[in-house]
């Protein structure tokens, strides 16, 4: 497996998973918006902050008085090319990665990504309006699922496959912490004190459902949604494929297929430990945000170690 190809496979998988999460997050947020009474205000800013593009957003909408409309925010999160976290950017980046590794993957993957690319490029503007948004999100999520289905159903389990799965796991761990972050930072600002509790829980439900976790959560937890339980589920659950613990321990198992590199093993081991030892009750009482930030930084360092170990091979 060429180092360059391994790296592109890894990033291809990451971008596809990033697009999937972004689509789900926006989809759930815009549903949530519909549920809110007039006394409760929906906040987009935390979502923009957690995907790390507050700076770009400010640059795009510098005038605080002329507050960006719902449509502006949608366009920014979904279609803006200058936003490195936008859905469009992720899809196009995945396609560019795939372009140079097409020979190693089933040709249908290219067809699906080309379809997604054209779907967004051709008339994304029209499709993200409130009227068509649900269909838009569903089409993107379908496309991402089709890609992961094609990969699991048809790609040989060679080391390239492991790099893709590894990329998917790392990206999902990262996105899960970011979505928790967004939820915990308050997507909803109730104007009346008595609404606070109700809507806080509504918000956690939104977090769960944007990670496709709402039903699984109910089956596992069997009680009404609370911050503590949701956090415990999304961080530490052993069985749910988008929980941080699940993703990282899966990545750990995949390391067995890679040439041994102690630095990578150590970093990943440390991350799994940190997640296992986290105390959701305490985190929810304070603000989970700083813990999520720490995990994101650690994930960044893990990526650095992987790149040094496998992608930048010296002569």
């Amino acid at each position: 497996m060429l180092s360059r190809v391994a790296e592109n496979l890894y990033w291809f998988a990451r971008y596809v998973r990033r697009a999937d999460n972004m689509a789900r997050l926006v989809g759930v947020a815009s549903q949530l918006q519909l549920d809110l009474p007039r006394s409760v205000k929906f906040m987009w800013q935390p979502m923009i902050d957690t995907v790390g593009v507050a700076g770009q957003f400010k640059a795009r909408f510098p005038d605080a008085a002329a507050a960006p409309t719902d449509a502006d925010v949608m366009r920014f999160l979904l279609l803006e090319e200058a936003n490195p976290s936008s859905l469009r950017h992720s899809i196009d980046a995945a396609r560019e990665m795939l372009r140079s590794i097409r020979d190693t993957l089933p040709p249908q993957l290219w067809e699906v990504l080309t379809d997604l690319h054209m779907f967004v490029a051709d008339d994304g503007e029209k499709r993200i309006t409130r009227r068509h948004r649900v269909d838009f999100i569903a089409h993107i999520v379908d496309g991402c699922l089709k890609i992961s289905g094609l990969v699991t159903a048809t790609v040989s389990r060679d080391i390239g496959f492991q790099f893709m799965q590894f990329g998917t796991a790392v990206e999902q761990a990262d996105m899960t912490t970011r979505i928790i972050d967004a939820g915990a930072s308050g997507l909803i600002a109730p104007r009346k004190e008595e609404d606070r509790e109700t809507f806080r829980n509504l918000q956690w439900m939104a977090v769960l459902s944007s990670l496709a976790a709402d039903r699984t959560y109910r089956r596992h937890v069997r009680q009404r949604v609370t911050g503590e339980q949701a956090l415990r589920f999304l961080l530490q659950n052993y069985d749910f494929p988008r929980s941080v613990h699940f993703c990282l321990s899966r990545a750990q198992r995949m390391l067995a297929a890679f040439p041994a590199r102690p630095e990578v093993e150590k970093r990943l081991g440390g991350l799994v430990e940190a997640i296992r030892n986290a105390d959701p009750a305490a985190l929810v009482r304070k603000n989970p945000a700083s813990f999520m930030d720490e995990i994101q930084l650690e994930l960044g360092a893990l990526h650095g170690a992987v790149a040094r170990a496998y992608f930048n091979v010296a002569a």
Partner: protein
Amino acid sequence: MDWTNYRSVAFDELIAADGGPRPAAGQLVRYLAKLSDRDVAARQLAASAIARVSGITFTVYSDGRNVDRPLPFDLIPRVLARSEWQRTEAGLEQRIRALNLFISDVYGEQRIFKDKVVPAGLLANSVNFRKECVGVKPPLGIWAHVCGSDLVRDADGKLYALEDNLRIPSGVSYMLENRIVAKRVFPELFETCTILPVDEYPMQLYETLAALSPRPGETPVIALLTPGVFNSAYFEHTYLAQAMGIELVEGTDLFVGDDDCTYMRTVYGPQRVDVIYRRVDDLYLDPEVFKPDSVLGVRGLMRSWRKGMVALANAPGAGVADDKVVFAYVPKMIEYYLGEEALLPNVPSYLCTDDGERRYVLDHLDELVVKPANESGGYGMLIGPRSTKKQRAKFKKLVVADPRNYIAQPTLSLSTVPIVTPRGPSPRHVDLRPFILSSSKVYVTTGGLTRVAMKRGSLVVNSSQGGGAKDTWVVDTEDPG
């Protein structure tokens, strides 16, 4: 589809002069005649959609972004009779054997020049002669492992060789993809006619390359070296690498070690490479020897090749025979090296280095096609009958200033094949590019890539200049099937 008003000014590949179909095209033409305009439009739409989604594109780089342009695909296949194709195949095989002997001779004893069959001055002025290759003996004595020869049919109904592309010919992936599209659009015809398959090309290419490995007996490690995603033929590079199951590498993926072996950078560490099917031009292959600022190549690759540690296909320097002046001598080469007469005629060529021929060329610029010796893609040529006075004056100057760099050929009346238009079938000029593989044996594709000038009356079929493609059927009319 209504054929009643279909008339071509040239030899038509499907429809004979009496308006009826040629024997090999009979089933196809009758089938198409039964389709309504709507059926035809629906099939053309389906074909374009398949071509678009499967990524049959050539890449154009503009504004800092990749733009994939689909290659226009026309529905109606070009049909060749098997009996004719067998004769053509033999001619192509003979040609490539002579060309490989010529290249070996050029970099070896240079007998053909000493014997004055070909003037020695030819080499001194050849832009594709590589002095770095003198004395090298590549595996099996083969230099041009992959050749794409362009054939055209003139008004007399005969196929002529127009040029041989021996550097890095492209287009074979379109040939393969066009067949996939045709099978999806005309499944009925594939059931009832005996259309010979084209899809063994990737395996044949693999075997051609594998036979060159410096480590015989072991499974060779083979890589296709591409200039990268911005290259216009990148689609083909990925396509072929995937079809053969070999690595697709870029220059930065490779390095030459202290032992002069060539290695790939892999997640396991360095891995030795035996054979490289390179789709990078000679001059970009190795900054140590050629262009020092090339980032597409691999430092030390020529050293590795000369020492026999890695095989390169095509061999560097093979392009010396890919020169329109050298082309004029191919029939003589066939006589000289093989003692045979050329089976496939050359398009007659006038050499501007010869005083008599040059005079003729300059006096007949309005009738001839004048081509620079080393351009590809249809650039820099003069098509006499369609030229302006100003253009002819310009070419007169060019030819006089640098006669070695120009040849002239009669303006052929290229044959036509119908394409689908909103007003029914309409004739368009075509050529044919078969691909010829050489190593331990010679293999010729079944048919080849038919390129078609999509503009009415145009003789320029190159994809970079608005040409399109058609599927090419070699049909066995004697098969009782």
